[in-house]
């Protein structure tokens, strides 16, 4: 798409929004892989997700924008942060040695492929830079109404299948997490490890009284 075409199809405020949100998305994406601190990486990811949501709003895909923020920024990255904070991986990682052999060459190949793909997409008729008009052209409704109708009529089966898949995944996660701790396991574990342990001094001439005092505390 040439610059001339770009200016005629996109109004000026839209162009500013696009440039600003696009830049923010790129900076965030760069920050995710460049930041040393995992929490900073996660925050940069949030910035990218937000900028993409802004781009969605600009294209009149409002529902997509809201879901982007609710699901990705509000749930998934929060979970990332949870894991980072609770498992204490907020230390600098050693990046001299790769966990997988040949990871770096593979990453370069994948990056080139993705860039080629984006280039192809940008050259095809898919990216017009125009806001979504399906709703207004199909009888004055908003895009959200059209989307809801499509999801609950034409694409009902895939939609229900996806939700069933998610529920199964949640149940599976719960079962896997709980298998290690059946009731008998917990009782025996508490009996051996972490019940109220009392340490009593016994008459042992080798024992100094200081040690006994200390372990009582």
């Amino acid at each position, binding site marked *: 798409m040439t610059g001339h075409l770009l200016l005629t199809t996109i109004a000026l405020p839209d162009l500013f929004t696009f440039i600003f949100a696009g830049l923010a998305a790129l900076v965030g994406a760069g920050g995710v892989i460049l930041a040393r601190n995992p929490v900073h990486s996660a925050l940069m990811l949030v910035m990218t997700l937000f900028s993409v949501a802004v781009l969605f709003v600009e294209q009149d895909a409002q529902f997509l924008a809201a879901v982007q923020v609710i699901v990705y920024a509000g749930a998934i990255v929060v979970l990332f942060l949870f894991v980072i*904070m609770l498992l204490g991986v907020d230390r600098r990682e050693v990046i001299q040695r790769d966990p997988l052999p040949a990871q770096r060459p593979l990453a370069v190949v994948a990056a080139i492929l993705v860039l080629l793909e984006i280039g192809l997409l940008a050259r095809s008729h898919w990216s017009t830079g125009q806001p979504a008009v399906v709703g207004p052209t199909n009888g004055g409704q908003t895009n959200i109404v059209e989307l809801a109708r499509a999801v609950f009529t034409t694409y009902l089966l895939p939609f229900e299948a996806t939700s069933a898949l998610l529920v199964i995944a949640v149940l599976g996660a719960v079962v896997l997490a709980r298998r290690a701790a059946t009731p008998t396991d917990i009782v025996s574990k508490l009996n051996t*490890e972490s019940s109220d342990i009392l340490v009593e001094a016994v008459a042992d001439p080798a024992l100094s009284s200081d040690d006994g005092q200390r*372990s009582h505390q």
Partner: protein
Amino acid sequence: MGADQLFSHGVTLAVFLIVIVKVLVAFAALMVAVMLMIWFERKVISDMQNRIGPNRAGPWGMLQTLADGIKLFFKEDLIPENSNRFVFKLAPYLTLMPAFLIFTIVPIGGIVTIFGHTTELQVADPPMGILFLLAMSSVAVYGVMLAGWSSGSKYPLIGSVRASAQMISYEAAMGLSVATVVLITGSLSTRDIVLSQMGTFFSFIPKWNILRLGVVPFIIFVIAITAELNRPPFDLTEAEQELVGGFHTEYSSIRFAMFFLAEFMNTITMSAVIVTLFLGGPDGYDPSFLHWLWPILWFLGKTIVFLFGYVWLRGALPRLRYDQLMDLGWKVLIPISLAWILIVAAMQVNRYMGFGLLVLSLLCAVLLFRSMSIGDQSGEATDITLAPTHWPLESEAKQIAPGLKVVRPTFRSGTPESGGSK
């Protein structure tokens, strides 16, 4: 962009200026409202506790908040040595911004005409409407979470982990009760939600969503919102007796003030959202003069009732324990709101299906209750995970003091934590 008539003839300079004025007025009004709210809360809670409360600055102590704000501005701004400086500075803004942004979608009045331009009395009316509330409340989690983490100290971290777990847990119930409102309205726009609640049953009962949906989603929403706001009785995040001050322990000066500004702003905004979703927003009796004024007064009146309610809750209820909080969220609110959304959906189809589903839900509730009580009795109680895991093993004890004998009491059916309550 939105459904506001203001934009129907394109965006001219006048339209642009009207939008700017609306934003400024909303911001100023919210700031003043926060100031009055803090004063109101302190006065009412003082009255409930047989105290006088602020009574020095201004008439009835009304300017006390202003004095406190100025004092906080000039206090020293401390940044702890162990903190993550950038995130530490960012967190208060992340808490404050969603609080203001949610208010932008609340309709505070009817439709007015300014300088020949007809506009709705709300800052923005986007088609995604109420989804914006859910999006912003999920962003609000970040502020609290990052504030606690970046302080580089134990108590704030515990506070922030509690807060984020609590906010995520109650977001589900909140979203489901919002979904019932959306189901009966057929639109996400807050203006449409308010418009659909106009009119009356039998010409005297208002057609508000609280009645149309049965009272259940309203109650669930109010409880979930209270938890989302971290207000008493759900203020485990701050829990002064346990966590010093929770996530904002390490904050001082204006950053500390911003957390409190955000908390009170959120209280006002969420009361306004409750009014919008369930109590008809600006809907109410309209005498035939001053048409633009009455909706605003109705809206303010209803919001103040909820603000008083929040203060009352703080004065009346003790703080929940953490396991009670999680049980209430996951085992009570989410199942009920899931069942109720199905019932509302079936009622939209026809009455027989609705009552059929009501019976079915009751059966499911009995089953669920029975399975939960079996689960509780099997000894696999949640509070076992709260037991400390780092107590010494026999071998470790031997290492510390070789001559000691480890005497282990037999495992009791209740864990040490389950007995004591505060």
